[in-house]
């Protein structure tokens, strides 16, 4: 397709998704289990009417922090999905590839079994997530072979080991309520969102995004593989390492605050590539806005219709599969068009 057409389309979709993001962000503040009439909503925000204290408290203390968290987790997970897929040149790869989510789950499960507070659950999850990826990289070094396949393979090995540890912890937790807590955490929730957590999340995600936007051209070349990147003047090992570190941090920081959320890291990059091709300077901005919007929608769905919250992975799974099937149908049509030519 014509480069100018893709550029135009990218700009259109980017603008549209920014508008959608703003609309859903406000909807995220308006909708929920507690009914707030539209005029009450605006009064609660723009006046200090004491009769709306409860409404104001719900908007400011419950919905605002979790909507912000949803937005940034959405950005983080879809970006890291995109980066992993591009770096490993495999479109079925998700952010969990190098074991970061399973590692984080083990960390969280340990903290839950020890009966630690939710802040410690997050810290344990974050550190174990990073540690797991570190171990994965170390194991791949044992092979003295820098290829991505070896890294993928050791990711599978370490991921499998971590799942086994997780099963063991679940088994040893014994107590049915502890087990339920672990399972619930694994399915993801924004329930623990508050502003101080949001500040940490926002800080990390924004720094990662700034760095990523600066290195979009090297990212493109890294996607071409070592031989191409290196002979075109890009330090392949350095940039691949940097990309893996950034996407791992993005996943770990998201997972540690809200548990594991599946599908988003797989689906959003696919949609984005359909629109903008494989140029990181276009796919990264689109991933940011699409991921944030998708996650806010998921959060609204997860907390509005039932008296307790539906786990995020259940919603992303349902929504994600439907979207994925639609993508496949569109792609099939495209493939058939090519055949006709």
């Amino acid at each position, binding site marked *: 397709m014509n480069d100018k057409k893709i550029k135009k389309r990218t700009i259109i979709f980017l603008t549209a998704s920014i508008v959608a993001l703003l609309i859903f962000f406000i909807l995220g503040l308006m909708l929920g289990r507690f009914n707030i009439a539209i005029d009450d909503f605006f009064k609660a925000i723009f006046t200090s009417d004491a009769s709306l204290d409860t409404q104001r408290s719900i908007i400011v203390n419950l919905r605002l922090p979790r909507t912000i968290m949803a937005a940034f987790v959405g950005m983080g997970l879809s970006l890291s999905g995109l980066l992993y897929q591009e770096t490993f040149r495999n479109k079925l790869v998700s952010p969990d590839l190098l074991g970061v989510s399973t590692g984080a789950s083990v960390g969280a499960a340990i903290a839950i079994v020890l009966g630690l507070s939710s802040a410690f659950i997050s810290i344990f999850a974050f550190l174990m997530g990073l540690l797991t990826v570190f171990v994965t990289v170390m194991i791949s070094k044992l092979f003295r072979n820098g290829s991505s396949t070896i890294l993928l393979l050791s990711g599978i090995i370490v991921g499998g080991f971590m799942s086994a540890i997780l099963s063991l912890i679940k088994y040893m937790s014994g107590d049915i309520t502890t087990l339920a807590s672990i399972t619930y955490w694994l399915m993801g929730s924004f329930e623990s969102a508050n502003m101080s957590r949001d500040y940490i999340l926002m800080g990390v995600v924004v720094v990662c995004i700034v760095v990523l936007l600066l290195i979009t*051209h090297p990212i493109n*070349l890294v996607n*071409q593989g*070592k031989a191409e990147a290196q002979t*075109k*003047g*890009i330090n392949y090992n350095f940039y691949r390492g940097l990309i893996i570190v950034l996407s791992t941090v993005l996943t770990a920081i998201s997972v540690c605050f809200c548990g594991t959320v599946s599908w988003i890291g797989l689906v959003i990059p696919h949609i984005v590539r359909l629109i903008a091709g494989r140029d990181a300077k276009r796919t990264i901005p689109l991933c940011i806005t699409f991921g944030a919007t998708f996650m806010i929608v998921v959060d609204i769905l997860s907390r509005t219709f039932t008296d307790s919250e539906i786990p995020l992975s259940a919603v992303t799974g349902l929504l994600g599969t439907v979207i994925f099937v639609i993508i496949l149908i569109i792609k099939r049509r495209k493939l058939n068009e090519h055949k006709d030519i």
Partner: protein
Amino acid sequence: MNIKTSNLSFKYDKKAAKPVLNHLNLDIKEGTVNVLLGLNGCGKTTLIKLLAGLEKPTEGSVIYGDKNLKDIKIRDRAKIFAYVPQQANVTNDIPVRQYLSYGTTNTLAFYEHPGKEEMEKVEATANRLGISHLLEKNLGEISGGELQIVLIACALIQNTEILLLDEPTSALDMKNQNLVLSILKSVAKEGKTIILSSHNPNHALFLDSNVILINNGVVCDEGKAKELIKVNKLIPIYGEHVCVSKDLGYEEISFK
């Protein structure tokens, strides 16, 4: 810039008994065309990779001008030589234009993207090689011959003194082999140094190049194609069925 290798050895596995390249010495003069000939698995591709810095020598060194390759920064290497990979290693779902723009990386800072000036370079080179009509197509949608020309175009866009090509004709039919070799011939006239590996001795004759015959990881002979490509020199490598035919009015290597 001259290219030298001194005592260059390489093993894929440190414990392997037999090295792929065994204390290999080369001296390639600026502005020459050089064809690496030898059997499959004799170390041609490995040598190209070592020259391109994609593998590290187990022993010995590669020297560009007066500098050891390992002391040259990756970014600066891309200004000295361009490398044309084998077709199989190229991703196929980006447009030709985007792929060609990657050739301008050596003039950009890490945070920069190819801009107007760079895209003009891309279009000029595409025009010159007659592939302008392919610019908006994906790499996966064009033919093998077209893809090979795109890969060479990308290397030319790098605007380097030296071109390294790994089997540029191996996947092509006769017509496209001729097209690619003609392009290389015209590039050589500009004074570029070209090193390519090939499995066909006739290509060396066509290019009127230097030939480096490699056997068992060492250079077993080198010289001008017309002098070197003789039956008695080729039989030890390619076997006794090799012959020179003059049926078409010029020398051609064939087999009985």
